[in-house]
């Protein structure tokens, strides 16, 4: 392990394991994300990267090992509870509410059940409820501005081009007020120019003190953004380190990068 910040560990996976029937998608994985860091998780297709995110966010039950977030175990919690702890994510297969507007999609990130938005208050339209709604709207507009979607506020999310939907997912995740953001292939479907502005966005998000765990196949992005890279293959960690050293690793080249690129 060469030169990694010794800041506090935000997310820590130890010996994490997940099986689907006879297939072990993630095997005994140890992984850390530290405060303020951008970590990358790469690996061949089907190596278990998305599965790791699904385990962290509580979508799949964990078959073995432990997940700690801010020093508290979080496995076994429901996804919404994990979100309330401060973990937000985007999806590899975009999951926006396509029949809802951009604004409403971001509002979803405000959640339901963690304070505010009481049924009775809503039904009777109390003053407090209205104030809360205005507060939410302001916050959402601010985030839309931040990611650059302000002009699409009232558009139906389903009508946005692919790339914009990815940004929308990021905006939605930001509104939950996360301490850690998990991005699953945010650059898929973006061209080189758009990747530049995405990099800029991720950097700005990181600058707000939000840690990022990034899954990506576009190496230019990984190389420019990440402080630390983990490489998975067949659910097993085959390497970790800084990108510069990872990209020279023969095992990684063989399994993932291919020879032509190097």
């Amino acid at each position, binding site marked *: 392990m060469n030169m990694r910040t010794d800041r506090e560990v935000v997310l820590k996976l130890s010996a994490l394991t997940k099986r689907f029937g006879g297939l072990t998608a993630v095997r005994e994985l140890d992984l850390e994300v530290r405060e303020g860091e951008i970590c990358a998780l790469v690996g061949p297709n089907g190596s278990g990267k998305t599965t790791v995110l*699904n385990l962290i966010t509580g*979508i*799949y039950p964990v078959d073995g090992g432990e997940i700690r977030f801010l020093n508290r175990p979080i496995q076994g919690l429901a996804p919404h509870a994990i979100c309330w702890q401060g973990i937000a994510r985007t*999806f590899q297969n975009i999951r926006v509410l396509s029949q809802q507007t951009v604004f409403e999609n971001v509002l979803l990130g405000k959640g339901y059940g963690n304070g505010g938005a009481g049924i009775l208050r809503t039904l009777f339209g109390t003053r407090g409820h209205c104030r809360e709604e205005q507060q939410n709207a302001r916050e959402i507009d601010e985030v839309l501005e931040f990611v650059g979607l302000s002009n699409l506020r009232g558009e139906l999310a389903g009508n946005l081009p692919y790339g914009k939907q990815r940004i929308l997912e990021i905006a939605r995740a930001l509104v939950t007020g996360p301490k850690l953001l998990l991005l699953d292939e945010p650059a898929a479907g973006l061209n080189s120019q758009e990747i530049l502005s995405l990099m800029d966005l991720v950097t700005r998000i990181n600058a707000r003190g939000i840690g990022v765990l990034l899954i990506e196949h576009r190496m230019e992005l990984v190389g420019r953004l990440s402080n630390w890279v983990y490489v998975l293959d067949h659910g097993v960690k085959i390497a970790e380190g800084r990108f510069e050293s990872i990209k020279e690793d023969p095992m990684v080249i063989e399994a993932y990068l291919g020879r032509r690129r190097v």
Partner: protein
Amino acid sequence: MLQLVLNGLANGVLYALPALGISLIWNASGQFNFAQSDLLTLGGYIMFTLFGTLKIPYVPAFLLTVAVMGGVGYFLSWVYFYPMLEARVNPQIIMIGTVALSVFIRNFILVVWSSTPQRYRNVFGSRALQFGELFVMPHVLWIIGIVAALLILLQYFLRGTMMGTAMRSVAQRPAAAWLMGIRNNRMISITFMMSTAIAAVAGILIAPINTLSPSMGSTMGAKVMAAVLIGGLGSFSGALVGGILVGVSEILFSAFISSAYRDVFVFGLLVLFLIFRPGGIFKADISEKI
């Protein structure tokens, strides 16, 4: 006791038969058709007219009924299901439409044939076969055979043939199926023709055993659906096992505990199944990939 189980079996195969049709549509179009039980009744009535009233011999009348009902299926897919699917209507709305369709078919029957209960001859014989102390109606054995044969045929058709695979692909991703060169509308028509034909077979067989009345299918309907879900929606073996399970257990329940609360038991059973084994007995154990 054994006699009761036998009665339950006789009862259960009658659920299993329409259950097959529901599973077929689910597999091959991703739809849930509430009118299926009324289509069954319609099949029974057409047979009644052909065989009972016009005195056409059984086999030709049977085939003719199945053909006519296939035509009905084609018509329905052409005027309703295909346009709705093509317009990518929310499946819920399509399903609610089938509820209206079900009311329509029932009342159509009422207007055409009146609500007088009807019957035609049970060609499988009307004396119970006696084995020692046990009585079995011959039609029970026949229907078990027919259900088994249909089950194998459908299973082979859907899993083993290109056409069956194409049908399922249309149900899952119509746009992509189109890009494979599959004619969606024709596939959907064939699906519905097959399912109404199966409903017709069920109706023809059930009518002389039960009573042919406009609500024949719908009184069975809820329990057929429970049987389908208990067995596993989309699984043909599940339709058979679910049907028999519901049939046997309800007879045992009403014999030993209470006949008044029998349906409470059946639906309670369903809820238990759905809680502890959502997806039913024969369910491929897949979780959605996120």
